[in-house]
């Protein structure tokens, strides 16, 4: 059985519960931003941070890091959106975040050691991996969905990023799943 989950909804729910537990007045905004209606003590901050760590949620302190996180979230939203987005990524990002693309691009490279363009490629390949494993769409359909001009373009980018071809990837992942389920059965028995 495979399950699919909405990370965003999940995290919001956890945040909501943890904040309520501490009796803080707040408002959840987009992009994981929390606005507080009242200030809280250093001690409260510490407890809150610790509570969230259990769930792999961390408080981002620096403005720069927070903005980079927004860029990443925007890219993920763009790449994983249901409808194909036809607007250029650079325009989309800078309009959405209200900063010039040059500024965002420099900041991104400085903090993440990679370029926005590269990060978009990584995310697109991630999504294509996901779709390839589901095996519901042909590679041509996947290429179209992810805005590649051709299936060859997707294949080349896939190979350049991972070192293997999409079909090799599919074959390996199928075998890997079979292998893991055998191991799990042995452990259960």
């Amino acid at each position, binding site marked *: 059985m495979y399950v699919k989950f909405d*990370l965003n909804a999940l995290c919001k729910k956890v945040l909501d519960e943890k904040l309520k537990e501490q009796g803080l007045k707040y408002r959840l905004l987009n992009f994981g931003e929390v606005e507080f209606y009242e200030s809280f003590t250093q001690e409260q901050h510490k407890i809150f941070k610790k509570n969230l760590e259990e769930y792999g949620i*961390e408080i*981002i*302190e620096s403005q720069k890091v927070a903005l980079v996180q927004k860029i*990443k979230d925007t890219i993920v939203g763009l790449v994983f959106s249901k409808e194909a987005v036809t607007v250029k990524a650079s325009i989309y990002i800078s309009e959405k975040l209200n900063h010039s693309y040059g500024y965002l691009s420099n900041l991104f490279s400085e903090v*993440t*050691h*990679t370029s926005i363009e590269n*990060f978009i490629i*990584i995310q697109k390949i*991630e999504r294509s*991996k*996901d779709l390839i*494993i589901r095996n519901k769409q042909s590679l041509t359909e996947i290429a179209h969905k992810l805005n590649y001009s051709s299936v060859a373009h997707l294949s080349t980018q896939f190979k350049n990023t*991972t*070192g*293997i071809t999409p079909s*090799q*990837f599919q*074959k*390996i*992942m199928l*075998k*890997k799943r079979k*292998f*893991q389920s055998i191991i799990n059965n042995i452990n259960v028995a």
Partner: protein
Amino acid sequence: MTKEYLSVIVVEEDEGTQIFFKNIFADLKIKTKVLFFSNGKDGVDYLMKEDALVPEVLFMNYDFPEKNSLELIDQVKENFRYNKMTTVLYSECLSEHEIEEIFVKGINVFMKKQNNYSNLKKAVTEIITVNWQYYTSVLNKENFIMKV
């Protein structure tokens, strides 16, 4: 805050290759803290300890004379603490079929071992850069397979 560096463990017998690795890691833009072990047994003994540091990336030579490196990694991975660790195996020559097998068994990265410093540097840099992205962004480790 996420820490600002990657912890790395390298298990490599050959001293010359260890020095290559040391210099490469020192040169990277992404900060790393690296521990070296000269044989598979020492490396695994360390990782099996309760208070062992859990590295983000483990580099291991595939060709150990005394023990099979896949078995060693299996042994380590039995401990759930190492679920998130990226495993990199490298070797001078493995057939396509053998490479496929190591991916099936759960290894994330296969690196063709380069004897030339600048080629090795290129490969290691690529691996660390991708790992940095996996570490700092939410990417699905299950699907992480890479051949360099």
